[in-house]
């Protein structure tokens, strides 16, 4: 099986990998680069546990081939914190108890960040719709919505610097 060269920037770091062209983006992230913060929860692009950000857009890592993001910038949950300083959305999640088992959390955080970057003053309705692609079995979603809403309302402004 002929391997293809993949050039990809993940969390600000450039990587070069030779991969089977059928490899999914999430497989490159988890298995090749060892960034296991991103999870997988289904085979039908339904659960959102593998959500990451590609060039500013939230993307389910299981729905694209890695080669489709050749040359592009990817952000995963590991890229949110900065030298131990948590991103506002991460702080908001902790304050609001927006995770329980934590398996959907990475995907929720990335969907939330993509939403906030695009629409920093999102309404509750817009937040709920923005999280429509992410399943959670533990929290019932409302604590996640409250966390994102708190960031929208500027409660973590000093952390955004």
């Amino acid at each position: 099986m002929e391997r293809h060269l993949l050039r990809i920037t993940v969390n600000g770091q450039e990587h070069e990998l030779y991969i089977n062209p059928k490899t999914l983006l999430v497989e490159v992230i988890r298995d090749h680069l060892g960034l296991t913060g991103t999870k997988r929860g289904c085979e039908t692009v339904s659960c959102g546990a593998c959500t990451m950000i590609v060039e500013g857009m939230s993307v389910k890592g299981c729905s694209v081939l890695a080669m489709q993001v050749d040359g592009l910038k990817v952000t995963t949950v590991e890229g949110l914190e900065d030298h131990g300083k948590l991103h506002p959305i991460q702080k908001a999640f902790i304050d609001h108890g927006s995770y329980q088992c934590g398996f959907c959390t990475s995907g929720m955080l990335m969907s939330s960040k993509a939403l906030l970057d695009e629409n920093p003053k999102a309404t509750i309705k817009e937040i709920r719709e923005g999280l429509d692609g992410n399943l959670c079995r533990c929290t019932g979603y409302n604590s996640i919505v409250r966390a994102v809403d708190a960031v929208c309302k500027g409660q973590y402004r000093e952390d955004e610097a």
Partner: protein
Amino acid sequence: MKYNIINTHTHNIDGVAKVTGRATYTVDVTLPGMLYGRILRSPHPHAKIINVDASKALALSGVKGVVTGKDTLGVKQGIWRRYSELCDEQILPLEKVRYIGEPVAAVAAISEEIAEAALDLIEVEYEVLPAVYDAMEAIKKEAPLVHEGVERNINVTRHIEWGDLEEAFEQSEYIREDWFKCSGQAHMCMETRSAVASYTPEGKLTVWTSTQSPYYMQALLAGVLGMKESDVRVIAHYVGGGFGGKFELDGAQFCASVLSMKLFRPVKIVFTREEDFIASKRRTPMYYYVRTGVKKDGTFMAREARVFTEGGAYTSMGATALYLTGFFHSFPYKWQAYRYDGYRVYTNTLPSTSMRGFGAPQAQFCSETQIDIIAKELGIDRFEIRRMNGHTTNYEVPGQATIASCGLEQCINKIEEWVKSRGKLPANRGIGISCYGFMSGGIFNWFDTPYSFSSAVVTINCDGKVDLHVGCQEIGQGSNTTMAMICAEELGVRVEDIRVHSGDTAECPPDLGAWGSRQTLMAGNATKMAAADAKRQLLEFATAKMGPNIVYDLDIKDRWIHLVARPERGIDYFELVKEALRGKEGQRIMGRGYYTPHRKGMISPAYSYGVQALEIDVDPETGKISLLNCVTAHDCGQPVNPLGVHGQLEGAISMAAGYGFLEDLPMEDGKILNPNLVDYKLIRAPEMPETEVIEIETYEPEGPFGAKEAGEGLTNPTAAALSTALYEALGITVKQLPITPEKVLNALREKAKEA
């Protein structure tokens, strides 16, 4: 009662790990030399295994081994260890398969792709046998037997009775009968079943797995593998959800272990989502017959219930679900006479087992739906009829339980207030209500453990930081945080001073695990006892140093050891610890705690209560239901971790509402038709209603700081509240779960016909 830490807004202590991607779940575990395993599953619902030929698979480059039942000891295991006739499951069966999806063989290879390809190369010769899918068909004389010698496929029967039922019916002035069908439900944990098993030449097995009870896994694995428990180590640091589906031995754990023992290499097996749907167990579907007799003034007199549950192919935790559904069907009301007969029937379908609520959501759905109809027909207010018959503190459920703390009446009052405040609702809208009561852990030792049900060890190190070792399992419900809070409160330090160790049988004391709503009460009691022991040792040293009149004159609060009467006189906790250790020849101060309930009735040491109101909107054209608001008044004794309780409530609503109107596992000829997340419908963020929780504080004498469960009981009322909301909104009743748009439209048509 105001505490320093109990019932304060406390961050979950696993927070940083979970929001930064540092938390490693079983699926993230990688070991040197690790192989990837996949399981070959039966395509038949009932068949004899004639022969398994793995030669072609073994010849595939990269395949290291294939195992079948022949590679095992053939032990029939089950979680009800005390009753050998209920230990009926060989995870890799030797003689026959009993449901579509049952494991038949497992392969280990150097990559997942190769393991997957190898499955197609394993040739299995089956002799297909006649199968039976429905409980009511399976119980007929002519039905094929799922298990040899089990007459009529009746796996378990349960009977609960008190009072003189006939007398009570005779005194009743209004009697009504109803028939209900309750569906199954998939646990649908975000993390599928998974395990990494590593067997090494010293004869020791280590298994990383996603489980609700590492201790159960350790004991069950030892049993089926012929090993000593202590040579098996189970590690579960982070678990992606359990909900009742992950405390039995499953195919991932068993097959990975068997493969690793054969190959002396770590083997990782992770279920696909489809496998998780078809081959992990499900909530128990039930047929319910209820006959209830009341007086014209609404006094509850007599109730008899007959229930058939669809057991699927194996017992699993079905025996408990069978008992609890009958027990909680009487809750939370006082009945002069009650009779429950339950029958669990084997079928050639996915085994049914425990799932959050454990038979009580089904019981509540049937009970509350009927009660609302009775209230309406007698012209009695639906709150009043519940209030007048509800449990009260010190009530004894005859022969079963004594209710030591009960805030039900206050809960009813609060919900009545809220419903009234909503005023007159627009058309097609209704607010349904449901009461419930639930257990805080079970008393019955069906696992046959010789250990205490919960244990804890508190160790104070020289820098004053505390290591808390507990066996209770964190699966997302927040038990690590709850135990840290209880320990910190009791010892008199802060939550950040505690490091919790859990999820490792080699490091932690045994504990029955996270199921049956037991951990806050049972592990909490053990933790409190251990902390009190450690505190006492520290205070003995403080007494010698400070010279109070008696040791009880001293206390520790917020890292300050002081005289209770003169709190300004004291010593810093960290300073004292340093001195105390030197005074004890450098030995760390260790406190031990344990808890096993005894002489507390038949079921549980304590019961939580609540009332839930659910406001819905129904589209009469499409039958579609929208959830608008959900308010719950809730008695969990003394709430320990309020952020956790609120989270549990909202999660419970999404799961229980899903059970009420969205989630279903339809089958055709034993095959699940929707084993994926496109076709299996779950509530998503836009569909979740706004929620409010009203805490009713009571004091449960048996619980740590007066606490009892919060999390499973909350799953009981929502399907019932949805049903009664429909009745309020449109005057129709759907007695079959889930309440789909189709069923709503059918009920509307029936109603129009009758008019």
